């Protein structure tokens, strides 16, 4: 029954998100949507995906949307009339996709192509012999598809860097020459078309004085961080790995700065250290590949790292997971640090 009910609830949330006028409620419904999605991943036995979704979808992305909302406006002022061309295109796309499902294989069937094609049985059979990983997801992530993961990590780091560049270069008064050499001449006058200025949030996140929040946060953070580290290093034996643990670690710092304020959080993890950590993770990952090259193997061939090939794979994959964890955690903190620093009154 829940197999039917949870996806249905997802649809209700998905539609409600776009119908609600107040952006704050919209973001909250989206958070619930992500949480339900995490439950659905669990029901589909995708436990690694569930950990990531719970931390990213329900945690980081909600905070991120709220921070951005605080820097812009909280009401969707658009009129709620139905956009006919968009509706027609949507219905047409839905019709084409529905027609396509006629040819798609039945779900939950073990004999369909995605499950019987060469690679999946190969991964399941050789996971332990070749990599020493019991969690096949971790084996594929770091070993069989190690190049893929290396560049995924690079994409995450690049997103972090572009965020830093977009926001730090922009903290200038209008009219001043910014770093790209373009003068900000496009300072428009919203009042001329009847846009009311809205109250802006404080430029820098302030400390929360509520003693309950402070005590609970202080008590919880060590456990959250311990769990994050556990998830990173436990990836070979159970659900977990660099991406999942990295987001959990990132969340712990975000909670800390939400409650104790941005200034206090900077004392614990400075902006400069965090910037360095973003690239350190990718360096660790790429570095392990280069070490393998020097030891006479192929790029990212972990088995040459130590005399015992299987143990070498375990060590190599652990190193790679730690590298991924560092970058992902640092980028998640970057998303938060850089967006709360935006000066709303500029």
């Amino acid at each position, binding site marked *: 029954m829940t*197999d*039917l009910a949870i*996806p249905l609830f*997802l649809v209700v949330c998905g539609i409600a*998100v*776009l119908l609600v006028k107040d952006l704050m409620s919209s973001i909250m419904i*989206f958070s619930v*949507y992500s949480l339900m999605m995490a439950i659905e991943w669990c029901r*589909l*036995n*995708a*436990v*690694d*995906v569930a950990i*990531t979704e719970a931390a*990213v*979808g329900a945690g980081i*992305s909600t905070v*991120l*949307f709220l921070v*951005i909302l605080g820097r*812009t406006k909280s009401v*969707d002022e*658009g009129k709620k009339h*139905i956009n006919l061309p*968009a509706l027609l*295109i949507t219905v047409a*796309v*839905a019709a084409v996709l529905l027609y396509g*499902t006629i040819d*798609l294989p039945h*779900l*939950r*069937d073990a004999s*369909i192509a*995605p499950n019987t094609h060469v690679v*999946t049985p190969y991964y*399941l059979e050789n996971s*332990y012999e070749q990599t020493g990983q*019991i*969690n*096949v*997801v971790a084996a*594929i992530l770091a070993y069989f*598809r190690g190049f893929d993961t290396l560049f*995924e990590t690079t*994409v*995450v780091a690049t*997103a972090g860097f572009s965020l830093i560049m977009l*926001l730090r270069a*922009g903290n200038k008064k209008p009219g001043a020459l910014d770093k790209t050499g373009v003068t900000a001449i496009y300072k*428009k006058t*919203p009042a*001329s*078309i009847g846009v009311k200025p809205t109250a802006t949030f404080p430029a820098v996140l302030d400390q929360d004085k509520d003693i309950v929040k402070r005590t609970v946060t202080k008590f919880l953070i060590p456990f959250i961080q311990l769990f994050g580290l556990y998830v990173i290093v436990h990836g070979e034996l159970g*659900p977990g*790995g660099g991406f999942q643990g990295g987001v959990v670690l990132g969340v712990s710092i975000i909670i800390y700065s939400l409650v104790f304020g941005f200034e206090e959080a900077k004392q614990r993890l400075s902006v400069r250290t965090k910037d360095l950590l973003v690239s350190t993770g990718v360096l660790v990952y790429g570095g392990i590949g280069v070490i393998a090259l020097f030891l006479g193997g192929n790029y990212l061939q972990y088995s040459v790292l130590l005399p015992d090939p299987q143990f070498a794979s375990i060590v190599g994959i652990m190193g790679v997971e730690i590298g991924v964890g560092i970058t992902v955690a640092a980028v*998640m903190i970057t*998303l938060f640090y850089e967006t709360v620093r*935006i000066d709303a009154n500029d």
Partner: protein
Amino acid sequence: MIELLAKYNYWIVIILLTTGLYGVMARKNLIKKIIGLNVFQTAVLLFYVSMSKIEGGTAPILLNHGHGPQPVFDNPLPQVLMLTAIVVGISTTAVALTFVTRIYREYGTIEEDQILELNKQND
């Protein structure tokens, strides 16, 4: 029940996908557009992970270090791909939201039609 479930998740994916698509096209608010894009993204993730589920399968974690009889495992490959896609997705969403704040700083609004009107006035 099995008959119904055979294609059920496909329909859910299609509804979510088109909801997101309509949101991106029809909503004028930029933050709403990005939320629509996120709904679209999760629909794609759901499509892949639904494919990985096998009737009676368990999470792909080996028993007894891969020795001896093993239960039926769900397909781990789509799970790996979607796991990284979520983290990449939040990073790119953050970049998009940053663009929204830059737009707000320049125009003082995040409504698409108002921005277009301001552009027209400035020309």
